[in-house]
């Protein structure tokens, strides 16, 4: 089944697939979120598998004492021998005692906690009552039966939005940038907005629990990440207004993203150009080198982070790569509408996954570069394919003008390396 996305032009074709998925669950978001919100702690309520997943995804023990942990459900909890609420309270008590620096605690649901219907939102309310004002307790689900990889961040931010203070009615309109960005990228964007004369700009999540922004009908928000559908809905429910835009990947995406905000806040064209022109010139010059290496090379995406579509748009339009298949775990048609319009005709988008069939297609297409998860990368390399680990696209600062070349570099390096090695 092949559906055109819109009627008036061929456009990319979309197919849905079901079968074995080879993707992380939403718990993985903790790996970057716990670094981003510097006084938050993430307590997964789950199994030994969940603990092992985060530890393995984090690349065993980067940080001596991380701000995440797992409350592992045991047989006695399941058998009803222990009162599971009391057990959880006890675990949280121990944790807060050990880490008095924690200001915000997320109880993170998992597949086991969902299947046994453990009500973490109620637990969060109960614990908040005893721990406030020292610690605010929130909850969300990162379970693999409900969330795929980056959707964990979406669930986390949606929970945060529900807790943000209301913005006073008479407030002036303000800009909210939504989605965790590397601190350096966030600082660059903040500088651009300042230069454009925007004075009320907030980022969600903020770096500290106490600095989370107020939200209301005067909030205009830009999504910095393509996977934030629940967060956007939660913001809209509180009256905030979405500013549709391309995502800030590559020169084209970043310019369009900034321009969307500039238009809403009536920034003059001259001011806008003055703000971005030198950064654009720099980015274009450095992309030029990458283009020489990537133009005409073919590319295949296994589904992973939902960043696939904007990155494919960047690689095809700014670097001249040929797109074969773009696998996405989930396609948010509204948030990605502008992105999809820019993809070349007849590109195959596959939503969902049957990993075995997808591997068959990848082998048949023989792309020059394959973007895939860590479980597939070495086996594909051994078969002679050049691969890029998709998780790096999430863990590396890639948004904005100054990072456009870094993003391109993630794709040139595997090709250069393969050319370099004589063994």
């Amino acid at each position, binding site marked *: 089944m092949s559906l055109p996305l819109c009627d008036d032009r061929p456009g990319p074709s979309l197919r849905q697939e079901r079968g074995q998925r080879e*993707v992380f669950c939403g718990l993985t978001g903790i790996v970057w979120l716990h670094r981003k919100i510097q006084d938050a702690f993430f307590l997964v309520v789950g199994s030994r598998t969940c603990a092992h997943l985060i530890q393995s995804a984090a690349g065993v023990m980067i940080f001596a004492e991380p701000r995440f942990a797992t409350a592992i459900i045991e047989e006695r909890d399941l058998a009803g021998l222990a009162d599971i609420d009391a057990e959880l309270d*006890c675990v949280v008590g121990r944790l807060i005692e050990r880490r008095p620096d924690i200001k915000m605690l997320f109880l993170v649901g998992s597949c086991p906690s969902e299947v046994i219907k453990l009500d973490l939102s109620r637990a969060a309310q109960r614990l908040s009552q005893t721990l406030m004002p020292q610690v605010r307790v929130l909850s969300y689900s990162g379970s693999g039966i409900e969330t795929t990889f980056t959707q964990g961040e979406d669930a986390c931010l949606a929970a945060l939005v529900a807790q943000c203070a209301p913005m006073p009615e008479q407030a002036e309109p303000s800009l909210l940038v939504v989605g965790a960005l590397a601190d350096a990228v966030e600082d660059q964007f903040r500088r651009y907005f300042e230069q454009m004369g925007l004075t009320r700009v907030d980022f969600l999540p903020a770096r500290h629990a106490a600095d989370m922004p107020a939200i209301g009908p005067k909030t205009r928000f830009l999504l910095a990440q393509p996977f934030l559908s629940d967060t956007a809905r939660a913001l809209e429910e509180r009256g905030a207004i979405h500013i549709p835009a391309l995502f800030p990947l590559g020169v084209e995406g970043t310019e369009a993203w900034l321009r969307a905000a500039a238009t809403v806040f009536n920034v003059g064209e001259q001011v806008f150009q003055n703000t971005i022109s030198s950064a654009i010139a720099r980015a274009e010059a450095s992309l030029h080198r990458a283009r020489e290496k990537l133009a005409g090379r073919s590319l295949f995406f296994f589904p992973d982070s939902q960043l696939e579509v904007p990155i494919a748009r960047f690689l095809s339009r700014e670097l001249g790569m040929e797109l074969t298949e773009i696998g996405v775990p989930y396609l948010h048609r509204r948030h990605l509408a502008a992105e999809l319009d820019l993809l070349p005709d007849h590109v195959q988008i596959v939503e969902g996954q049957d990993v075995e069939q997808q591997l068959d297609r990848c082998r048949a297409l023989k792309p020059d570069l394959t973007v895939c*998860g860590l479980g597939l990368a070495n086996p594909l390399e051994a078969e002679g394919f050049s691969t890029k680990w998709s998780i790096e696209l999430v863990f590396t600062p890639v948004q904005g003008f100054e990072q456009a070349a870094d993003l391109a570099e993630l794709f040139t390096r595997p090709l250069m390396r393969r050319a370099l090695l004589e063994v």
Partner: protein
Amino acid sequence: MQLTVWTYEGPPHVGAMRIAAAMKNVHYVLHAPQGDTYADLLFTMIERRDTRPPVTYTTFQARDLGGDTAELFKNAARDAYERFKPDALIVGSSCTAELIQDDPGGLAQALDLPIPVIPLELPAYQRKENWGAAETFYRIARTLTRPRDEATRADGRRPSCNILGPTTLGFRHRDDLTEITALLTAMGIEINVVAPLGATPADMSRLADADFNVVLYPEVASITASWLQRTYGQKQTREMPIGVAGTRAFIKEVAELAGIEVPKEIENRARLPWYSRSVDSTYLTGKRVFIFGDASHAIAAARVASREIGMKVVGLGTYSREFAREIREAAASYDVEPLITDDYLDVEVAIAAAAPELVLGSQMERHIAKRLGVPCAVISAPVHVQDFPARYSPQMGFEGANVLFDTFVHPLMMGLEEHLIGMFRGDFEFRDGIAPSHLGGSAPAQEAPAPVVVAADGGAQVAWTLDAEKELRKIPFFVRGKARRNTEKFALERGTTRIDVETLYEAKAHYGR
């Protein structure tokens, strides 16, 4: 509910994966949600495996839960059989599937596949990875192993054994297997089957043909070996061939089981004995070493460190509760409290309190040691990409003993360097906290936090005079923690609450080596 920061072992189905991935022509269908596919990267990234582990995950989602997850499982099992054409299929549940109770074993049987189907029951809320590996290996052996072929018993035949235990993601299993295979072959013993690493289902069916079993890794193989002993009368080895003494004991045991003489010249590659006797090793005498890991590696490391290198064991522990008894016995022989826990934070506290000069542990202890500024070497799983070196680096046999000597000694400050730092503490390049020069020098090591000493009755604490503190700082940092502890203990025993320079030197004389 257990609060866990880092885990030493994964869930039991990861143990099952280690068996399936070690074997050939076996496929594992695991009823599990999508996130559980992370386990593939343990094999492809940590071990740098060049093929995907032979595992199909059903990846059911929330929307399937109301519907038919059982059908999903059956389809996945059928498709996996069609695609991979394995000689045997193992099936089971992950932690989440265990809760929805679909009975993968029954569902897979109902498919009537023309190959053996081996159902696994791995209780994810009670058990862990090593147990899961052992149980899976046992279930496979129980299903596939046939009674011995009496034709193999012909007179005049060379004695034969199986080697049981090596898996994927094991600590140096690949190289241990090479070393022990060479050792057994040199002894004139035939290897019937190595399992699970490299074994096919057909190989598993021939286990009973061997005369006895070599149990390389009891964590994985002891349940199976005991069953083989009960069922087919095959004796099994108990000695771990780690270190020179361990390897000698192993050789003797094997010779007895095989009914042969110990061949001469078998030790010709053992360098550890002379290296240890060489005078440059004198400085290793009595070095305080803390050891934590899986039980077999920890016990063996303690024996090598103490009896073959001359160090002093000041802590010994394991995260394998299944082997608590063995660790207790070993700890008693070193007169230390056994530490049996899988709580990383407890291990950290115990290491800080023991003030060791060297830590031998897993990657977890490496991080603890780094934080405490204590040298460390890795001797046990859980593994990390660094634990799969490109070079040959066994832990077992005589070459393994050579490797252990290098491994234990390498992180330490060398003898003369240690003396020079002791003599010239004021030299800015020899400043406190500097790492051994062959390890790149200046990495600042923090001193272990001084333990707060409280008298047994919960009463008075000891206080240091300014002069005594100053004098203490002149003691090289790598022994300062111990000096502080000893002095405080000495003072408390004498009922002194104030430590001055005199007390410091009295304590030094009291505890002097």
